[in-house]
């Protein structure tokens, strides 16, 4: 019987790396967007719609459009390749992009609705007490909605482990390079290696279960 870590060890590491990077991105973008979308800023509705889109839009279709955009012959991918010699698709940044886009609405929405709800009056009080937007963000908003931030981050990171559609398209499911934990399970099943698929599923399941319990502890699920 093969030891546990013999089953696609790179995939586990890769999934953890992706999760780590998107966690940092979510922390910054989630709070910034959640705060911005709760304020009367210009183009608010458009921004809101863009962030929310992946909630309904199929990931495969999003992935395909991004592939067309960032591929070697795409509008953005072409100059990137020509002038910077950098290919986004089928690489680690592509995996991060997929996880980020898929998870972003799950991070932003709880933060946004918490700010619009319980924090709205507190923000207004802070303004009348002479504080600006940035001071208010750090002194009031973040401490008050910290549980919602934690819940959003957990949901977002959980999604990053499970994302398949966009990852297939942008990452390409290349063994040892862009094979995430979820894809590794699929690949092992295709190879008929059910023992490994079972172990990887248990591993992934345990990770997700941990996040799930954390979420219920935070009272957000």
């Amino acid at each position, binding site marked *: 019987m093969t030891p546990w870590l013999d089953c696609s060890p790179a995939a586990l590491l890769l999934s953890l790396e992706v999760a780590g990077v998107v966690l940092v991105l979510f922390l910054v973008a989630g709070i910034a967007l959640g705060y911005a979308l709760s304020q009367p800023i210009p183009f608010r509705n458009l921004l809101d719609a863009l962030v929310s889109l992946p909630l309904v839009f199929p990931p495969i279709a999003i992935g395909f459009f991004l592939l067309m955009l960032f591929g070697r012959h795409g509008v953005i991918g072409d100059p990137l390749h020509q002038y910077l010699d950098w290919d986004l698709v089928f690489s680690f940044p592509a995996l991060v992009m997929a996880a980020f886009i898929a998870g972003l609405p799950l991070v932003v929405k709880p933060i946004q609705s918490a700010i619009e709800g319980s924090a709205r009056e507190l923000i207004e009080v802070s303004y009348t*007490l002479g504080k600006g937007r940035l001071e208010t963000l750090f002194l009031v908003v973040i401490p008050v909605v910290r549980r919602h931030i934690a819940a959003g981050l957990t949901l977002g990171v959980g999604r990053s482990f499970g994302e398949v559609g966009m990852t297939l398209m942008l990452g390409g499911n290349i063994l040892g390079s862009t094979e995430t934990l979820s894809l590794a399970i699929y690949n092992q099943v295709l190879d008929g290696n059910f023992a490994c698929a079972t172990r990887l599923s248990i591993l992934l399941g345990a990770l997700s279960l941990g996040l799930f319990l954390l979420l219920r502890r935070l009272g957000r699920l």
Partner: protein
Amino acid sequence: MPCLDADLEFRRAAFRLAARIRVPETGITALVGPSGCGKTTLLRLLAGLERPMSGCIRHGERVWFDQGQRIDLPPRHRRAGLMFQDYALFPHLSVARNVAYGQPHGDGEGEVRVWLDRLQLQTFAERRPHALSGGQKQRVALARALASRPEVLLLDEPFSAVDLGLRQSLRLLFQEVVAERALPTVLVTHDLDDVRHLADRVGVLIAGELRQFGPTSEVFSHPLDVEVAQVLGWDNRLPVSGCEGGWARGDWGRLRLNGSCSSGFPEHIAIRPHGPSLTDGTGLSVEIARVTDMGGYRVLLCRLPDRTALRIHLPSDQHPPALGVQTRLRVPDDCIVPLPAPALGAAIPASAFT
């Protein structure tokens, strides 16, 4: 002395608010009105949390808002001490840090301590807001607003979350503190006791329109129209269907007015609860529905022939009638206040503001 002057218009969906108001630096100016009349919106407009469609707001020589000059100071530069109805204390900060929050930078703890002492909050200084009672929260919110050195004070229902038997002492403390600072102070409330016991001036706001504004006792004793009377707690409003030879009549009976009614008659009349008395002679026919002893006087609830309720205050030394008794009520003509129909859109004369 710098007054707070506002003359503004605001619209949102079908709601329209148009008010012109001058708040002097001394005493307290109250705003009353039915729910949804725009009281809270007016406070938020003054504080800069909502933006008027047109008009201007000035504090003394300083312009806070002027649509023509395109001036719109953000809330943090107006420094209006706004107290929200539910106090909006920062839940993650202690009482002391709540009070210190609005202090200009560089100030020591000294002033915070002064305000904690002044509002009897020393013992709670390290507690979080959730561990406070309604009255304690109210004092923290007031201390926080005052410690930020505001230029005006705007208060939304400051006593609504305070237990009844504590309001009297909190009102007195509040009045003292406000008098010391001499700031233009606007108090929005639906509690007429707040107005009577605190306010020097009162404005009545109905459906976004400031219908009456003046010294408290004058507004209370002489409401300008029937809707103002209703807001100010005049329960005894009788519709008048006709008037002949100085007698106003309705389904409830008839009453002699002070003066003839040859040049028209009021839509309603109101009857002061103090003054009328039971009689065996001529008067309104009433049935006694309830008698309540209030300590120094008795409240009689009478039913008129058209089943309208009438509330009369009788001195305790008069013998109370039995329930269900049919009797007559003598209403002296100085107890009758004529109430014309509301004159919508009529501006309050400028003299009211000086």
